[in-house]
């Protein structure tokens, strides 16, 4: 049984393009629904072509609201559209900062549950979403039992984005409503952190360091190796919390989900909360001096050794090539 219609959140990057996670969800939405439309808290015309290529036939857009917070305004606009009779079977969003806010505000407006952190959705027998729990060791399937639009958010990299070559989507207005006192928060300024090299969650190679590096300065080895492999450096939470690297480097349950061709974990024990963010990698190399480290349980190549010995030699060998 396919659904009749779903709405997918087209989240915008600071540059105004559609975020990869929205294109990933669009790919799945096409599979489960006859009609796929997107909604966005921004300009619809600017993304009509992209989302059309990814299978959406319509963009419901609020127009520019870049001086406001998305959650309360997009949530209220969606609720008004739904109450006005234009109800989809499901509203799908990314488990992102704005995605969660919009889903949360919408869920209160409609008095419907929202299920977050999903990695899959199935519509064969009702709308059933899958979530990984206990660090990804178990998968829970939950059915929406309240009727009305099912509101669900998905982890990044749950699906693979794919173009269908569709025509530009039709642009329609998603009418804003007065959110009253709740709408009073303002967005004054955006700060985009400068990054060089590929993004952590898009890189083909990720080299991550953990507490086993011993001290902040040793993270230079991780940066250097990542650069040589045209990859991105990543980190365990232990060294983010210790202030060695910014939070944006963190891989795991409370950080980024990565699925590179190769993930190199250096001095990382392999806590379930770390592994849930990287065990979807196609290949995993682990370097750890403890042969009992859990990371070896999922590594394709495990080196029981000292990062201070193995990494410098590896870097030298790659330099020599």
């Amino acid at each position, binding site marked *: 049984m396919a659904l009749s219609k779903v709405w997918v959140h087209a989240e915008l990057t600071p540059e105004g393009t559609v975020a990869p996670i929205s294109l990933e969800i669009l790919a799945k939405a096409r599979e489960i629904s006859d009609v796929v439309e997107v909604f966005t808290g921004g300009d619809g015309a600017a993304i009509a072509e992209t989302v059309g290529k990814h299978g959406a036939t319509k963009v419901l857009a609020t127009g520019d609201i870049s001086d406001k917070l998305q959650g309360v305004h997009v949530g209220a606009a969606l609720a008004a559209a739904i109450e006005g009779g234009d109800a989809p079977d499901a509203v799908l969003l990314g488990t992102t900062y704005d995605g*969660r806010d919009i889903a949360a505000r919408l869920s209160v407006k409609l008095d419907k549950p929202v299920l977050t952190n999903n990695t899959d959705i199935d519509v064969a027998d009702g709308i059933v979403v899958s979530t990984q729990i*206990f660090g990804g060791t178990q998968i829970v399937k939950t059915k929406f039992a309240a009727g009305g639009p099912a509101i669900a958010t998905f982890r990044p990299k749950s699906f693979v984005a794919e173009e269908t070559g569709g025509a530009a989507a039709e642009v329609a207005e998603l009418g804003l409503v007065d959110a009253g006192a709740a709408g009073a928060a303002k967005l004054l300024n955006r700060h985009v952190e400068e990054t060089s090299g590929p993004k952590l969650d898009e890189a083909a190679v990720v080299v991550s360091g953990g507490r086993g590096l011993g001290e902040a300065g040793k993270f230079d080895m991780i940066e250097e190796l990542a650069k040589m492999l045209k990859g991105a450096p990543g980190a365990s939470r232990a060294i983010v919390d210790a202030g060695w690297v910014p*939070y944006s480097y963190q891989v795991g349950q409370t950080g980024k989900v990565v699925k590179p061709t190769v993930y190199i974990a250096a001095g990382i024990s392999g806590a379930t909360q770390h592994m849930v963010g990287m065990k979807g990698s196609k290949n995993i190399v682990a370097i750890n001096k403890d042969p009992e480290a859990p990371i070896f349980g999922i590594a394709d190549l495990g080196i029981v050794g000292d990062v201070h010995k193995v990494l410098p030699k590896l870097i030298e060998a790659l330099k020599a090539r």
Partner: protein
Amino acid sequence: MNVVVCVKQIPDPADPGALNPDHTLKRDGKLILDESDSYGVEMALQLVDKAGGGEVTLVSMAPNGEVSGLRTALAMGAAKAVLVSDDALKGAGALDTAKVLAAAVGKAGEYDLVLAATESSDGYTGTVPEQLAALLDLPSITFAKSVEIADGTVKVQRQTEAGYDECEAPLPALVSVTAGVVEPRYPSFKGIMAAKSKPVETVTVADLGLDAGIVGWAGAGQEIVDVAAAPEREAGEVIEDDGESFQKIVAFLDGLKVL
């Protein structure tokens, strides 16, 4: 200035988690203050301190009248707590939890600011604070990595995928804080002793004027249909470094054509 902080008491994350036969999370052992919430408590204490007066009130929802996590936060310096404990809340989803917390905030007295962690360490839905804001009809700024208050306005650096956004909202407002927004203090011995006699008001769903049919299992609007082990990733080759193991890595990377 008065601040209400939502705190969750959870099973120790260091222990392996387990489910009850009805698929709810096992919470029958000792519960502790979710570390994520220690940031909200600390932030609240600092803001009240800076304002030169007021108090920090905790609200929490937990089974079996559990207070050990609350005592930790009271020992840090919070003045009092409202605890909602009721068997009817078993299986409550994020929206139900927000409804219960909203009603509990109503028992906490006058407030200027509500703080919460961005997500709990055991459930991590990350929607409860924003749902709570919606129910209380408050402006909200989520995922704060820095919080300041001046002239009746809360100024926040809000975490984004690309960096952070500078945001502000008039008080009263709700803010959810990330780990690292401030460095939580350790309770002092004096604090721990004082916490023992600080007031904790324990209330039921009925005390809050809520219908047990709309919160907890009955109201969750969701049904767990299956729990299964995730497919395991097989371990590959593990070798002892003999000084030459880097060659193995080079060959491995070469085979994958990433060099």
